[in-house]
């Protein structure tokens, strides 16, 4: 099986918030990049979820997004 290239897509809005998505990871090393991005951006993760790609790569987890870590009540996420 040919593995997809691993990428990280970062979007920085004019409001100063940042969204990031890992793409093409086949293991949980994608989670390592949460801390890497926080350090790189001097930022804190306020919401996180597995993507549809995660759901398609596994059979044990439900299809809906799952909370990964440190999701907080944050007005900007509403």
């Amino acid at each position, binding site marked *: 099986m040919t593995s997809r290239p691993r990428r990280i897509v970062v979007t*920085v*809005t004019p*409001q*100063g918030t940042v969204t*990031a*998505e890992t793409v093409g990871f086949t293991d949980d090393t994608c989670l390592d*990049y949460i801390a890497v991005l926080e350090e*790189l*951006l*001097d930022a804190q993760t306020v919401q996180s979820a597995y993507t549809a790609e995660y759901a398609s790569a596994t059979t044990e987890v439900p299809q809906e997004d799952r909370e990964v870590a440190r999701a907080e009540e944050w007005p900007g996420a509403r």
Partner: protein
Amino acid sequence: MSVSLILLPLAVAAVTAYQGTRSERDADGRIICQVRTRMRDATLLAAALEETNARVTRDDQQIIAEWQGVRARFVRGEDGIWAAHFSGEVDEARAVEIVSAIDASYGRQVQRAVLQRLRDRAATVGLRLESETVTEDNSVQLVFAVEGRG
């Protein structure tokens, strides 16, 4: 297996753009309007104020911004968040309007700072910039190839 994240730069407090508006009178009977902001970074705040054509002066304790007829004194709270105290030709509605304009400018300053940080430092953590695109809403999307941790 992939994750999506929302990150908030430390320069931005996790609160609404402005809050806690209240008015009081100073010793001379002049109205002072106070508005709390979400802004934490003094340098970016000063740059945002200059972008609104304010005359800006600052010292360790405060940042003063003056427009025609309106003066704002920004002081940092114990939580590190700046609050604005408006005086002059201003009421609460006008104070909120001004803070809203400053906040929009501050957001753009944060965007620039974050993008610069990404461009400067991504390679040090094994990320190679493949593309950079400006979207319709003026967000900037950067795609990085993961080349391993450097």
